[in-house]
Structure formats: C-alpha cells, structure tokens
C-alpha cells in the first residue's frame, strides 16, 4: 500500500511537469509570458552561472533562519511573561489583538524609510510576522495549564519557578511547537516581502529584477527556491517537534 501511494505521488508529479512542458507551447502561449519546464530549467542554469544565484539563495535562507529564530525567541519569552502575569495580560491583550490583526508586511516600507536598503528591514518584518502567532499560542497554552497539576506541585511545596519549569513550560510545548510550525511558513513570507520592497540581494530581489526584465522564468525559479527554503525550515521544525513531543501518542494514519 505504502509503495503504491509513493508511486502514485511520483507519477502525479511527473504528470504535472509533463503538462507544464507541453501544454503552454501547444496553446501557443509565448515563452516569456509562461515559460515551460525546460525553459525554466535553462534559465535556472543561466542564473547559477550569470546571476550568482547561490549567493541570493544563501542570503534569503540566512535571513529567514535569523528572523525565524529571533522572532520565535521573542514571541515565546513574551508569551511566557504574559502568561505568568495575568495583570499584564489583561492590560495588554487589546493591543496584542490589534497588532496581531495588523498586516505585518505593510510595515516593510516604513522599515526601509528608517533603516535604508540594508538587511534590517527584511529581518524586522520577519521577526514581526513570526512573533505574534508564537506569542499567542504560548500565552493561550499558559492560560490553559491544568490547574490540578499546578495544585499538585503547590501541594508538594514547589517554588514558583519550579512550578514554571517543571509543570507550566513543559505543558505548553505542544502549543509552542505548533506556533513554530506556523512561524516557519510565515518567516519565508516576511523575508520575501522585505526583499521585494527594498532589497538588492536575495530571491525576493530576483523576483523584482526578473519582473523588470520581463523574465518570467527567473520569477518562476525564485518562487520555487523560496518554497524550497520554506519546506526545509518546516522540515527542521517538524524534526525537532517529533523528538520533543515523543511522549504524545501518534494517531495511526
């Protein structure tokens, strides 16, 4: 069964590539409007040799990772601090909700005005976009820690910090990991927007560059590589999640 599913998945992919290769030329769509598979691949090798593609990939990947790590760290710390202080949480929750709803990518032009065409705007947009889902997930989990479990620790005369590190924080791990998975996908968006709006390096920059040259194949390749970066980051998070949450029974699929 497993083998059959794998074969079917691969066959489906091949069918999509074949359709991409043969249907656009058959319909008479011109290559610079909708490049087919082989045109896109030819452009890919040209980008590697002539456009310094790997440098751009590395730049985007580094920014994504840095923004993700920084945003997650700040979001998690913020979530735990608010979770520990119900007073602060009550005071700040309307603002948190507001900021959570505000479209974070819209801050990108502002950051460029402030920090110029440097790496800072990209990093800040990414941090901002990753920050909130993680903060909200952690905060929510802190509020729903089993009261009886906390009471048990209290009855054992544990200190406040022992209760936090031995009961509350481990209880929030599933929610934190779910937040990190959401954050991993959002990080790529943050970096891309930052590079689109004001970059001179990275895949987002190559997208605007390709657009200016009416080089759709370059845009295609950039999108594919951005997706690949997102998948790798997501895969890394899932890898750690499976190890950290090993104590949760897996649902048989």
């Amino acid at each position, binding site marked *: 069964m497993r083998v059959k599913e794998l074969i079917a998945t691969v066959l489906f992919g091949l069918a999509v590539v074949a359709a991409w290769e043969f249907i656009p030329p058959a319909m008479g769509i011109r290559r610079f409007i909708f490049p087919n598979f082989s045109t896109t691949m030819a452009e890919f090798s040209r980008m590697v040799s002539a456009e310094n593609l790997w440098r751009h990939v590395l730049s985007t990947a580094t920014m994504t990772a840095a923004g993700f790590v920084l945003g997650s760290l700040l979001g998690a710390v913020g979530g735990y601090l608010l979770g520990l202080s119900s007073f602060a949480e009550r005071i700040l929750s309307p603002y948190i909700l507001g900021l959570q709803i505000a479209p974070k990518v819209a801050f990108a032009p502002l950051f460029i005005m402030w920090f110029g065409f440097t790496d800072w705007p990209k990093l800040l947009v990414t941090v901002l976009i990753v920050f909130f889902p993680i903060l909200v997930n952690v905060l929510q989990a802190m509020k729903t820690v*089993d009261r*009886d*479990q906390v*009471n*048990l*620790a*209290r*009855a*054992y*005369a*544990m*200190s406040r910090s*022992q209760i936090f590190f*031995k*009961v509350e924080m*481990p209880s929030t*791990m599933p929610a934190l990991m779910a937040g990190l998975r959401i954050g991993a996908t959002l990080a790529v968006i943050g970096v891309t927007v930052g590079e689109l709006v004001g970059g001179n390096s990275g895949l987002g920059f190559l997208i605007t560059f390709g657009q200016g040259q009416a080089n759709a194949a370059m845009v295609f390749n950039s999108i594919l590589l951005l997706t690949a970066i997102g998948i790798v980051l997501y895969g890394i998070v899932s890898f750690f999640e499976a190890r950290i949450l090993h*104590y*949760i*029974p897996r649902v048989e699929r």
Partner: protein
Amino acid sequence: MKRTGAMALALEFQNVGKSFSGGKNRPDLKAIDGVSFEVRKKEFVAIVGPSGCGKSTVLNLTAGLDRPTTGSVKVSGETVSGPNPHVGFMLQKDLLLPWRTIRRNVEFGLEARPVSAAERRDRATRELARCKISDFAGHYPFQLSGGMRQRAALARTLAIEPDIVLLDEPFSALDAQTKMLLQKSFGRTITEGGITTLLITHDLSEAVAMADRILVMSDRPGRIVEELIVDLPDRDNPIARRAHPRAGSFINHLYASLKLDERAA
C-alpha cells in the same frame, strides 16, 4: 477500632467552616460548617456524602491549598498554614506529567526537597516495587492503562512519605473490574505499609470495603452527621470484605442515613 486517647493523631479538624465569597449582591457560599473529626495514625477513614457537600473542600484544607474561614486544621499536631509536605493527595485524574517516564513522575514530589538524585532514585524504586509497577518504570503515561496510571499516582504520592494520604475519588474514572482490582491493590499496599488514609468517595460499598471508619457528610453546608465504625476483617482485601455477610448491612445503614431513597436525582 478501639478509641484510645493516647493514640497519635494524623489529622484533626476542629470546628472547621469554609465560606466562599458569592460575588456582588449574592450571599457567601458556605461549603462546610462546624466540621470536627480526627484521623488517627495508621487509620483508614472514608468520607461519604452527596455531591456538592464539600468533600473536596476538606481535601483542599488538609493539603493546605485553602485556609479555613473558622476553626483549625492540624496535621500531625501542627496547624496547616500553607501547602505542607506531610500530606500526599491523589485525585480521580492521575495528574501524571505526560512528558516524564513513570519513574520520573514518582520522583516529582521529591524534587522540591533537599534530597539527592541518588536517594530520589532509591525511593522511586522502592515505591514502584511497593505499588507493583516496577516493570513500567521506563514507560510514559500514555503507554499505561488507567488502572496502572493510578498505581503510578499512588507511588508518586507515597514517595514523599506523607503523614497522611488523601484519596479523592481515585477509582471513579475506572471500569468496574479495574476498580475492584485496584481497590484490592491499594487496600493491600495501604494496610501493609500502615499508611494513614482519608478516602473521599461517593461509592458507599467502596467505603465499607476499604475503611476502618466512615464519616457521613450532609448536604451543603457540609457537616458530619454520622460516624460509622466498620469492624469487619480483611481490610487488606476489599474484595473479600465486600463478600462478608455483614457488609451489606453497613451499606444499607449508610444508604438510609444519606436518605438516598427520598432524594431526587
């Protein structure tokens, strides 16, 4: 059980009342009122009563999670003024931490104390053996059945060597057969270890099968309305005790004093 004044007391409730503020424009809620009773060392006492009679309040006051509004609560002669390490409690929920192995769960209560890691291990090993779950020491809670998890919870409770163990409906989430087997296992562990126990339950036959003495609580505000001494043999074997010819009369007596036949559901 003979009453001998010289016997040391593990738990004393002296005229204890507890009210909770009912909020704006609403009267305070009296959970229990004028409750007095004692549990002697090595004694097994059960409290039965209708739901909402303040049984859990008794537990919280003993564990030091709550303070009485009136009266005083003493554990081993000392007034309870906060969470205190001489009381172990266990609920219907096992409260095992899912990210810890059974062994590490048993060690949990000792981590608040100045006990070396080696001694924690030794004590956990001893309690796991006593509760007959040594084979599962390295398992995680999700890998165990409900009955096994409750045994692990008992091991965790006993590991802190409490002066008194509070059991709040520890069997009520289990299926009928597991319940009987676990009662038997707990009965033996408690009797062999000479462990002072206060069992809070709504199951009258469970109280008769396990306890030396039964306290009957009234509707809210909860008061102790009757004390029943269960002078049946086989306290270490609740299954045998249930089958005792006089067990039924104790249950009927409790049934009558709770006026269950007159109450609407």
